[in-house]
């Protein structure tokens, strides 16, 4: 049952190939159904492989060698898939959530002129993510890593006719490339110390890596992960990534892309476990990101931007867990987050769809009357991310915070404040969108001039519920957000599906060993904090949507981070480019080229006088030359 594993990345890849060749002929909606079917097939294969792995009791790690990719002397890289509990957990939720998002996209993208191309990129995105997750060595993972990066660029810039979308795509790509440098250098260091890039090989030769190299590898890979998973200071691209179609945001934020960094850090846990300073760095950056992003999310107006910063914040929690050594908590939160964040994004997409591409929260309000299904499912997502028991987010976030409390109490405190902020900004979003007055009437009464009308006629002037292909994923994800916490119930030893991950982490796994009394206390604290956030936000934002005093410009502009980068990196870069264009290009390069030409012309002008046109002069020259030569030779012969 394990030998079909190669089908997991292959099926979406095949879907990509078919769509590349025949996408236009399949058209709307069959191209979408094909894309969805391949990813759903991939999910089925993942389930089969999962069952096969569960049947094994002792060694649940299986390597499927496909072929030798790079055979160069001592440098052998195989195209191989590593099937173990960690990669399998990732593969299951990646394929599952992606399949739902594909299904949703069939409805959401209807009527888009580039409909088949959207699913082409989507399929390649999922295939790349699966390569990343299932890769057996760093280089193969890197292929998926780059594939995810380039697909995100294509998808964020999908509506490239808009300048903002095109530059958001470039921004995502450049931030990711910047971080990838860390990945590459880390790979060089690993190969230099161990002579292999295969995960098992690296972990078997850990002793041959010097402690400094270990720390360097961990920090470089964390830099790469910070770019991909949008950690401070590399997170601004994820907010701009909202320029893409909403299903893309859901895909990037929930299933693929941003979880890659967390996965990578979990994958290299044996190296990370040996470098305590690196762990502290990871945890600190994680919790700082969580806090910063949560504060920014409190003041955003765009519904998708709030969700984007909430993703950054949740990813910060995951890195806090990774840094603490609580890898299982990180994976648990990642899976739970995939459920509720996909739900929130798809719900937001449904709202945007219903309001004819209106994303401004201040122009929504009272949508629960018009979009009941979206509202109900969204409420599940909202309560889940806010950490209200018994939804998935409560258990997952609680797991992270409990471990942080035991190891880094200072970071735990910041994490707890962030939890309150999370509940606050999510409640603000829900209150603004689904409660209050019908502020959307001002928008919908105007003639619709949407940039991407999805084939929706703008005759009806009330928000409308979405078609079933969009509603079904919402319902499934809402159910998963409700019961997702059952994946890792802390107080029941008999039912622990996530515990099968433990062998991957072994002794590196941090275990707090807290008494059940302490666990209860911490759980209650979490819940109380979440409820406080809710209780503050709901009355505040239901009554009045405009509260400038609670939305300071510094938060709305995300601490001016973009402006800082603009001033320190972008402006000098542009100045350098301008200097090169005006000075280096015209003076140095053109000067050299023109100088060579001028030299040739000058020499030619001087020498042309010799050519008089009189044949007899030439003959005289030849004779004189011959006489001179003879005289020289004669003189030599005599002496």
């Amino acid at each position, binding site marked *: 049952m394990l030998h079909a594993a190669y089908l997991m990345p292959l099926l979406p890849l095949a879907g990509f190939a078919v769509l590349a060749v025949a996408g236009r002929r399949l058209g709307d909606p069959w191209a979408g159904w094909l894309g969805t079917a391949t990813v759903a097939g991939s999910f089925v294969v993942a389930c089969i492989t999962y069952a096969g792995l569960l049947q094994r009791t002792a060694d649940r790690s299986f390597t499927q060698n496909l072929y030798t990719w790079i055979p160069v002397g001592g440098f052998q890289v195989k195209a191989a898939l590593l099937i173990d509990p960690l990669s399998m957990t990732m593969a299951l939720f990646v394929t599952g959530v992606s399949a739902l998002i594909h299904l949703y996209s069939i409805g959401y993208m209807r009527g888009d002129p580039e409909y088949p191309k959207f699913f082409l990129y989507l399929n390649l995105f999922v295939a790349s993510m699966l390569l990343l997750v299932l890769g057996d060595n760093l280089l193969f993972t890197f292929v998926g890593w780059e594939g995810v990066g380039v697909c995100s660029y294509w998808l964020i810039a999908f509506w490239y006719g808009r300048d903002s979308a095109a530059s958001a795509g470039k921004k995502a790509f450049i931030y990711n490339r910047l971080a990838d440098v860390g990945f590459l250098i880390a790979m060089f260091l690993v190969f230099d110390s161990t002579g292999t890039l295969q995960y098992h090989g690296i972990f078997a030769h850990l002793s041959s890596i010097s402690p400094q190299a270990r720390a360097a590898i961990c920090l470089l890979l964390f830099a790469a992960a910070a770019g991909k998973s949008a950690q401070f200071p590399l997170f601004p691209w994820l907010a701009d990534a909202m320029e893409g179609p909403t299903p893309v945001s859901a895909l990037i934020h929930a299933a693929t892309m941003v979880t890659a960094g967390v996965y990578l850090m979990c994958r290299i846990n044996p190296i990370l476990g040996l470098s305590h300073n690196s762990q502290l760095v990871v945890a600190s950056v994680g919790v700082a990101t969580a806090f910063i992003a949560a504060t920014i999310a409190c003041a955003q107006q765009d519904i998708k931007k709030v969700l984007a910063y909430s993703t950054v914040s949740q990813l910060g929690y995951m890195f806090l867990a990774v840094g603490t050594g609580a890898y299982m908590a990180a994976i648990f939160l990642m899976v739970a987050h995939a459920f509720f964040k996909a739900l929130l994004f798809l719900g937001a997409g449904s709202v945007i769809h219903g309001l004819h591409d209106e994303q401004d929260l201040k122009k929504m309000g009272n949508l629960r009357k018009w979009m009941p299904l979206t509202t109900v499912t969204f409420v599940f997502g909202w309560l889940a991310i806010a950490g209200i028991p018994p939804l998935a987010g409560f258990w997952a976030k609680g797991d992270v915070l409990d471990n942080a409390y035991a190891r880094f109490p200072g970071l735990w405190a910041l994490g707890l404040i962030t939890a309150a902020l999370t509940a606050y900004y999510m409640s603000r979003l829900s209150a603004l969108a689904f409660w209050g007055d019908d502020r959307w009437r001002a928008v919908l009464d105007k003639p619709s001039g949407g940039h991407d009308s999805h084939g929706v006629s703008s005759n009806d002037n009330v928000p409308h519920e979405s078609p079933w292909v969009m509603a079904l994923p919402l319902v499934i994800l809402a159910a998963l957000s409700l019961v997702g916490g059952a994946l890792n119930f802390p107080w029941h030893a008999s039912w622990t599906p996530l515990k099968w991950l433990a062998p991957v982490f072994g002794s590196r796994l941090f275990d707090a060993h807290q008494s059940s009394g302490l666990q209860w206390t911490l759980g209650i604290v979490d819940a109380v904090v979440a409820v406080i956030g809710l209780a503050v936000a709901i009355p505040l934002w239901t009554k009045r949507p405009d509260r400038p005093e609670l939305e300071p410009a510094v938060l709305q502009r995300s601490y001016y981070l973009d402006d800082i980068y603009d001033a320190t990196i972008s402006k000098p870069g542009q100045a350098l480019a301008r200097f090169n264009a005006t000075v280096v290009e015209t003076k140095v390069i053109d000067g050299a080229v023109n100088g060579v030409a001028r030299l040739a012309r000058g020499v030619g002008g001087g020498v042309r006088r010799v050519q*008089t046109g009189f044949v007899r002069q030439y003959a005289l020259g030849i004779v004189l030359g011959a006489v001179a030569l003879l005289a020289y030779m004669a003189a030599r012969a005599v002496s």
Partner: protein
Amino acid sequence: MSVPGSYFLVLAALLFAIGALGLLVRRNVLVMFMCIELMLNAANLTFVTFSRMLNDIGGQALVFFVLVVAAAEVVVGLGIVVAIFRRRATTTADDLHMLKG
């Protein structure tokens, strides 16, 4: 009794010098051609003489090549002279300096 080789060499040198001088001082293209022929044949005479003196047939073989090349050169050269004469009705070398740089 035979004439010593050095006589032939002196003759060849004289012929060559006459040819070279003629090439430099005469302006008529046809006469210049004849001077070139004179020089070439002076060289041929030198080849044959050394061939006899050194008992090496290579020198005489080379003469044939020179003759063939000279014939070809005359053909091309006379062809050019005829073409120029048709156009400009002159065979004076100094009138033909249109190719100056």
